[in-house]
């Protein structure tokens, strides 16, 4: 098997009074979607933030494309090729949809325009709303925008935090389809979801988290087949 793009070993993310992630080992290879499944408070967001460099108290090893990420700022990690779709979308509210896309690009103006057009092809609804301020977009449109914004950076690894939360099923499906397409084009996707069904239907592999630890992992198919495991995990 080829070397994984992302390798995580013994990752711990702590806050003042809790350890949100404890001793997590994980790897993600180019071209695959790995689902990170867990209930409220399992530590999914903390794990993704730790990978992105957004939390201060992180221990363990993170290797991305051969680079050790220890001590690197979010900026440096982004420039190495990690894209981030935060929990709760967090689009830039006072900027238009198009400005949200443009600002994330690190290419020259011509390439930026081309990439923006690619995003509109991926999410035609965004093209319609391109000049609307982002705060006026619907939840689904904001979610599409948050994914497209991260894709503007042409990431080799995309960290996506609960992209289907609160979306109508059809919209959730279209976002998930895009993530699948990103992996098909050779990038790696780490998808945190509470919605186990949706995530498992898309993912190649899955990792189940509970209380900051990995409870089980395997192919998405095997995990989806283990009803009892899933029920115990999501039940509490």
């Amino acid at each position, binding site marked *: 098997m080829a070397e994984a793009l992302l390798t995580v070993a013994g990752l711990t993310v702590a806050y003042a009074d809790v350890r949100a992630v404890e001793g997590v080992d994980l790897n993600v290879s180019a071209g695959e979607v790995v689902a990170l499944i867990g209930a409220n408070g399992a530590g999914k967001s903390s794990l993704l933030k730790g990978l992105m460099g957004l939390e201060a108290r992180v221990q363990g090893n993170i290797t991305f494309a051969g680079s050790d990420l220890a001590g690197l700022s979010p900026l440096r990690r*982004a420039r190495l090729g990690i894209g981030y779709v935060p929990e709760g979308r967090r689009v830039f509210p006072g*900027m238009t949809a198009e400005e949200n896309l443009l600002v994330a690009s690190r290419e020259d103006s011509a390439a930026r325009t081309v990439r923006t057009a690619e995003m509109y092809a991926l999410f035609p609804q965004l093209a319609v709303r391109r000049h609307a301020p982002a705060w006026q977009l619907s939840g689904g449109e904001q979610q599409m925008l948050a994914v497209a*914004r991260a894709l503007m950076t042409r990431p080799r690894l995309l960290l996506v935090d609960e992209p289907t939360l609160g979306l109508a099923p059809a919209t959730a499906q279209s976002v998930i389809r895009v993530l699948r397409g990103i992996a098909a084009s050779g990038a790696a996707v780490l998808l945190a979801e509470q919605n186990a069904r949706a995530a498992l239907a898309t993912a190649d592999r899955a990792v189940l988290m509970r209380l900051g630890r990995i409870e089980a992992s395997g192919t998405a198919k095997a995990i989806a087949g283990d009803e009892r495991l899933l029920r115990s995990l999501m039940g509490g």
Partner: protein
Amino acid sequence: MEFLQLAINGIALGAAYALVALGFVLILNATGAVNFAQGDLVAAGGFLAVALAGFLPVPGLLLLPLVVILMAGLGLAVSAAAYWPLRDRPPVAVFISTIALGIVIQNGLNGLFGAEPRAAPPLFSGGHLEFFGLVIARQSLAIMGVAALLIGGVQLLLKHTQLGRRLRATAQDREVAAALGVPVGAMVALTFALAAALAGVAGLLLANQFFITPTHGTDFIVKAYIAVVIGGWGRVGGALAGAMLVALFETVVAAWTDYAVATGLLYAALLTILVFRPQGLFGEAEGRRA
């Protein structure tokens, strides 16, 4: 006729205040903090123009680019001293450190130039123009022109350039901007540079007509603060309009009554606005902010 005359003076004064208030709002949005040194940077810009004029006896317009560059440098120093070490602390820490820095600037100016009021050279030349019986100081027209160009230029920068988008993204969600590869530290430093340059230009413009003293900065920060509250905390357009309103009180209303009454009325208006429209007069027009 007299009203028109006063209104023109007021608009010129308001244009200079608008530069100060614009810088104040840009930093407020980028850091969440009030830059209390913004007023002292106006005084610093005024004295810088006075000092440069001593070496270079040229019209103010030619000093203007020098003031912009040197003040931008001073702005970077302000961000390094008063913001960078406290960037992970609550905004109130930055607010307090800028108060301290403002005192340092005041004392520095006092040491270098003394407490006497000084005047900077006019932008083109002194004197007045007459239009249909209106007597207008050339400097007033020049102030309006320069301020309009600078404010327009900043708007263009913010709305239509990649740098401007990055400055705005940093102001709206610094964490996410960083995660997208925006160099947020540099963006905040640049915001300080921009704000200091705007304050410095206001200093150069005002130090001709109204003279400048080292402690003058306190006046300017109070006016900028009032303008920003009136205009809606954090709103660029509102702050510009607020600056005009403050200046019109100082000129038009002061001429009808007197300066003390006009100041009293301005504070009364401010309180009324805070009570009945806490979001500011222009609070809703520009849509929601982060």
